């Protein structure tokens, strides 16, 4: 197991967990499943494009955050 940080909260996950797995793990309701499908994911200050989520292998101490789009002008 490794510890990553999701929105600053520690989260223990298996060592071979990818970014999509993490988001599936923290999305506990259908609503959050849908919400997480439509945000930008940031790992250690770098944005990971959605198509790369299944290919990003999480590392111990990764800081993972989600950003919603801001649309106002």
């Amino acid at each position, binding site marked *: 197991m490794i510890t990553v940080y999701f929105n600053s909260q520690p989260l223990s996950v298996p060592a071979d967990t990818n970014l999509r797995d993490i988001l599936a793990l923290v999305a506990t309701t259908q609503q959050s499943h849908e919400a997480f499908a439509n945000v930008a994911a940031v790992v250690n200050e770098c944005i990971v494009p959605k198509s790369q989520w299944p290919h990003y292998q999480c590392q111990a101490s990764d800081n993972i955050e989600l950003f919603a789009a801001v*649309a*106002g*002008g």
Partner: protein
Amino acid sequence: MTTSLSETRFVHYYRQILLPEVGESGQQTLLQSHVLIVGVGGLGTHVAQQLAAAGVGHLYLMDNDKVERSNLPRQVLFAAPDIGQNKVDIAKRQIHQHNPDVHVVAWPWHFDLDSVAIFIQQQPLLSAALHQQKLTVLDCSDNLTTRHSVNLWCVEHKLVLVSAAVSAFCGQLLLVDLQNAQHAGCYRCLFNEHAITQDCQSMGVLGPTVAVVASMQAALTLKHILRVGAADDHLHVYDGYTLSWRKLKRQRDRHCPVCCTPSNSPISHQREASL
């Protein structure tokens, strides 16, 4: 070839010209530059005012909204007597009063791929700037649909896009430049069409938060036009609670349906550059 500035213009822009990164030739570059601003609301009024003051020579303003009373706390070019009038017409008048050097075209239409095509058709200077890829586009719109349309149009025409957004206490800013920062991708690489959004109408916003984000958008635009530093490849995120900015490194989505189509592939760009 550039000619020297008139004495009046030299004095007018002296404090900018003093900067080695600007100088007289940089000021000439600004005076000859073309910027299309999509959305003349909170961000658009601030950014238009700042770019005009800096001497950006050609501003094209696109927005179909009319001035409303609720706009006045943050849309600095408008006053109570302007309520009910086209935003772009008032903005044009105000900018011209402040700096007659600037050629302003007001187009009271909503941005979509059809309306911008008509606009281009009717404006020979804008059309020339577009085809020479000397047009910079600023997205100051207030909804995700327009943001994706502006991004698509810019990618198709290989134009640089400076996109800013603000809502509540949060701001976001990015520069899309597929010629010089291809690795950073486009707006669609970041958020898809179904993204969860925050907007000013439902969340509210403070005028100074808008002004901070707009000033950064104007600064990023001037840096791009003057070629100061490398092309920016970050998403800049402003937190109005802590009054701080974060820089998040962007990367192109290899499966992006907008900027990774065959006509926008890295190979096709390289081929065009070598011709």
